[in-house]
């Protein structure tokens, strides 16, 4: 029998032994560097560097793929070499939020208290009340934070304020809430300034880059299984004609119709977010109509061959309807639209969108007979 020591099996020699911070039954996150001993037990210390897998994960959720399953375990973490006097930063357990925070804590020693927001970002979770007064106090108690730190301050992201009442937190668990900046990248400056946020740190931004990063998710919401059924239905409608049903017409006219719909999706879900401040009007549905008209006409110009007036009308109307609807849906992703305003424009424009769809279908089906 071969000896294990001097005669390894085929292939490379054995890798390094298990790390001292591994525990049976748990998988170790790559960002956990060490375990820091505290009076109530070990607390994982996290790296402030994002690695390839963090970036790939961010891209994955930005594309809308398994966006609801990107979480870290709630509880207490730490960065640097924290002591009992160091600050506590509170965040959501959406990994994108957690990563944004730890990246900005480079060179800072402190504690990170992660709330169980069901994997949802701070602002949305505050709106849904999972980033809440109760959850802050629950995690403070569960982690026995008062035995680890000497002060009684928690730094919360300002956008958590719709869900957390600073006064109620003080009453319920005797911790003072300090409202930190809206964006994690202002944290170093906020800390340097003695935990004071400049007015610009209190406002969300909505730059071109901020808007473009939202586009893939908008598209993924539109492109669903229902879309495939709709496209199939359009092919069927397109085949109806003087010969009762023609497969070649279904294909050719079907593709034309789909091109018009596609142009509406691009206009409403890509161009409207991108060009938002430059499109006239305040109402998103109206902005969508303007770009939908342009996109619908552009599709017709690109089309070679004969096309009747009714078909033009159908294509433009359908592009307008889809673009307007998609643009209206983008309100949910902006940091400045009020629900009352969204409801107002929905009441005004959804009948218009429905009429445009109806008009498009009638014109499209009638076109071969005229």
């Amino acid at each position, binding site marked *: 029998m071969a000896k294990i020591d001097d005669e390894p099996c085929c292939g490379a020699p054995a890798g390094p032994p298990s790390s001292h911070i591994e525990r049976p039954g748990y998988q170790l996150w790559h960002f956990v560097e060490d375990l820091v001993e505290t009076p109530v037990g070990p607390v994982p210390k996290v790296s402030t560097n994002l690695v390839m897998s963090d970036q790939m994960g961010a891209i994955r959720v930005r594309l809308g793929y398994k966006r609801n399953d990107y979480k870290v375990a709630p509880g207490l973490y730490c960065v640097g070499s924290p002591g009992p006097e160091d600050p506590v930063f509170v965040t959501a357990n959406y990994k994108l939020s957690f990563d944004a925070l730890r990246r900005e804590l480079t060179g800072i020693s402190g504690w990170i208290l992660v709330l169980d927001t069901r994997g949802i970002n701070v602002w*949305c979770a505050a709106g849904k009340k999972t980033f809440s007064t109760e959850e802050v106090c629950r995690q403070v108690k569960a982690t026995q934070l008062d035995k680890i730190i000497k002060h009684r301050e928690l730094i919360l992201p300002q956008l958590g*304020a*719709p869900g957390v009442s600073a006064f109620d937190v003080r009453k319920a668990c005797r911790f003072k809430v300090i409202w930190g900046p*809206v964006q994690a990248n202002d944290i170093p400056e906020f800390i340097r300034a003695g935990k004071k946020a400049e007015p610009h740190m209190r406002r969300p931004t*909505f730059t071109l880059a901020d808007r473009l990063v939202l586009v893939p998710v908008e598209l993924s919401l539109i492109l669903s299984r229902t879309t495939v059924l709709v496209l199939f239905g359009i092919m069927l409608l397109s085949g109806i004609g003087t010969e009762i049903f023609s497969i070649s017409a279904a294909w050719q006219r079907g593709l034309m119709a789909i091109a018009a719909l596609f142009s509406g999706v691009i206009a409403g879900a890509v161009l409207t977010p991108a060009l938002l401040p430059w499109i006239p009007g*305040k109402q998103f549905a109206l902005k969508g109509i303007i770009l939908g008209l342009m996109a619908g006409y552009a599709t017709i110009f690109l089309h070679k061959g004969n096309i009747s007036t009714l078909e033009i009308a159908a294509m433009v109307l359908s592009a307008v309807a889809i673009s307007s609807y998609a643009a209206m849906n983008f309100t949910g992703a902006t940091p400045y639209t*009020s629900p*009352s305003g*969204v409801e107002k424009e929905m009441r005004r424009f959804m009948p218009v969108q429905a009429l445009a769809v109806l008009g498009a279908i009638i014109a499209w089906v009638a076109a071969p007979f005229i």
Partner: protein
Amino acid sequence: MDTFRYLPGVATLKLDPEPCIGCGMCSTVCPHGVFEVEKGEKATIIAHDLCMECGACATNCPVKAISVTPGVGCASYIIQVWLKGKEAADCGPDCC
């Protein structure tokens, strides 16, 4: 952010100056600079139309001087409210 202004005159935000103690918390938590609180004075609404009804001010007002109907400015959620009512409405699994 100043380039973005949504529909005027729709926000449900109301401030009752009577109970206000001028603590300034509304102005701290508001993401759009809707409030102004001078030192030793009561809060005033200086930009009502910038209100997005997130509810941060009302949640954090210690004397309940602010009222707003908070909500999600999301079309698919509002459609759900219309169809199923406020209780059963949900943005769906793919929302924020």
